[in-house]
């Protein structure tokens, strides 16, 4: 008789079909399961019902300005590296109704009291969980707590997955965020050909997993997983040297390189929209034609948008070079002053999805070379 009691920190082997049942349990417990799904020739994050909605047998090849998917035919669900979307869209919705106002004599406000959904995120990578950790610092502070984010974050179930096959745009190892999870999840998967290894991270995770038909893993299985994770960490071709950040950037606002980047950057804002930590937002009124009813919404914004830094009398950053400089010196510089950490997790999305193929690791290295020259 074996002891199948789970505790936090336990690792067990879970036959792949059991994950389907685990997701069903999550939904039965009031969670909306969202996860990766093959759509629009890419991988998006959306509501999924179970294993069948996951991108089975797909790997990705990501390079600057390029995202390709390749069919492997394998019975594996998490071989790909995520696409442009990140979990940010569930915690910090791209558009959200704050309140509506109606003029009936005087203006009356109606708050948006729709309850926040309880999401279960299926397949969160280590860099992505680190990004959620960074956004926690941005949105949940002593002096300001974002109610929209907080309600979603409090009810969040995180099913993490360790990355075993990083793409060429990944550099999480050098940012210290991945590819292996170190905590902060409810359950964490490592996918092998035949089975998932699952680590328990929370009471809820333990309870859900207890109801599943898991097995206790043998040394061979655990070694295989460990070796795969080890390989992943050493296979990353990109890296960011953070040793002289943030000073390298904040102390060299007049570097020539900014001018040079300004010629290539299109100010399309893609990098900020795909970034899992970028948090800027705008608020706008959607008003009816009579001007008697309005909906006030919060929308994602970007420091690359020309209106972003508009003040009466002009734009404080009229040139693209100064917008790029703002983005990078914030992300890898002043972010630390504001929130105690750098704002980059090394996921590489901004490199893959930049139409001009601008690579921030290369830009930081170029600024370093210029300064040291």
């Amino acid at each position, binding site marked *: 008789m074996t002891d199948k009691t789970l505790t936090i920190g336990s690792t067990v082997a879970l036959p792949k079909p059991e994950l389907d049942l685990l997701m069903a349990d999550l939904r039965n417990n009031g969670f909306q399961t969202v996860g990766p799904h093959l759509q629009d020739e890419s991988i998006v994050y959306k509501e999924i019902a179970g294993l069948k909605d996951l991108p089975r047998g797909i790997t990705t090849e990501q390079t600057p300005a390029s995202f390709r998917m390749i069919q492997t035919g394998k019975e594996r669900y998490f071989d790909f590296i995520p696409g442009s979307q990140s979990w940010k869209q569930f915690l910090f919705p791209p558009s959200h109704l*704050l*309140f509506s*106002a109606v*003029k009936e004599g*005087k*203006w009356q*406000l109606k*708050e948006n009291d729709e309850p926040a959904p309880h999401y279960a995120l299926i397949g969160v990578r280590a860099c992505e969980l680190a990004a959620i950790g960074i956004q926690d610092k941005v*949105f949940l502070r002593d*002096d*300001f*707590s*974002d*109610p*929209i984010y907080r309600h979603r974050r409090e009810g969040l179930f995180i099913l993490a997955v360790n990355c075993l096959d990083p793409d060429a745009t990944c550099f999480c190892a050098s940012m210290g965020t991945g590819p292996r999870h170190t905590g902060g999840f409810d359950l964490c998967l490592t996918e092998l050909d035949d089975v998932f290894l699952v680590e328990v991270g929370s009471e809820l995770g333990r309870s859900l997993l207890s109801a599943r038909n898991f097995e206790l893993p043998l040394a061979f299985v655990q070694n295989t997983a460990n070796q795969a994770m080890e390989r992943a960490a050493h296979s990353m071709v990109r890296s960011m040297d953070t040793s002289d950040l943030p000073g390298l950037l*904040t102390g060299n*606002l*007049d570097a020539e390189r900014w001018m040079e980047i300004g010629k290539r950057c299109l100010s399309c804002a893609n990098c900020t929209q795909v970034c899992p930590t970028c*948090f*800027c*937002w*705008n*608020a*706008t*009124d959607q*008003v009816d034609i009579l*001007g008697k009813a*309005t909906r*006030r919404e*919060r929308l994602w*914004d970007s*420091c690359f948008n020309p*209106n*972003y*830094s*508009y*003040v*009466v*009398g002009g734009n*404080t*950053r*009229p*040139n693209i*070079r*100064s917008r790029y*400089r*703002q983005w990078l010196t*914030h992300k890898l510089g*002043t972010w630390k*002053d*504001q929130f105690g950490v750098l704002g980059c997790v090394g996921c590489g999305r901004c490199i893959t999805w930049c139409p001009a193929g601008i690579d921030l690791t290369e830009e930081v290295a170029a600024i370093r070379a210029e300064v040291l020259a």
Partner: protein
Amino acid sequence: MTTTLINTAAHSAGYANKLLLPHWAEIVKIIPEAEGVSTFHLKFTDPEVQSRYHFEPGQFNMLYIPGYGEAAISMSSDLETANGLLVHTIRHIGNVTKAANRLKVGDVVGIRGPFGTSWPLDAIEGMDVVIACGGIGLPPLRGAIYQIIRNREKYGKITLLYGARTPADLMYPSEYETWQKAGFDMQVTVDRGDDTWTGRVGVVPMWFYHFRVDPHKTAILTCGPEIMMRFVIYEALARRIPSDHIYISLERNMKCGQGACGHCQQGPYFICKDGPVFPFRALENIFNVEEY
């Protein structure tokens, strides 16, 4: 760098958990000030909100006009002088502020605030004070002017340098006499005058050419176009006034007032929460960086 920022922002209207949700305030009075500028006196429609609302001069409110959006507007008075009303002098120049120009007494607007840091009226006690402002930069200082007058004995020489485009653009001219009677040296200057203008023509920073300041006991409070403040700061620093005795109020695009939306960042600061009033020492490395 050991600069301490002064943040007295108590979110006294209490809505920390309600993102961008304003309180309604009724327009009690509208005073035309100059071409395209008017002053609104506002009172919260909810007496409970009104009674717990407090602010310090230099702070600002987000003013919401349904259908148009919000604009950050400085307090243009202090609570004592305005009998507890909110006073906002508004230049009708942007989308929201132009809409404000079409409002009438009795209409309501949304208010969130107060936000940001205030003028350091305690820290500069005992000093000579040079208030250097231009255009719509006077209203954010008017509350400070009232408080200095009310506590006149706590301060040394007070000089008020005020610049405007033309004599017709000068704000609150009926109050200058009171300010002078309180011992303010009023130096009003315009960019261009006509035959009837007997005042100064020139720019605010040139005052420093003709007057001597004691650098050890002089504080500067400046608000106005950034280019004007830049030259005021050059002149003040050239006269060896320490950078932590120069206080500057900055303007940036703001959507939240709580350091959340990201728009108003300059360097490490969120101007809405760490400012708008800064000791210049905190900005030394970033203020003159082009387009930063």
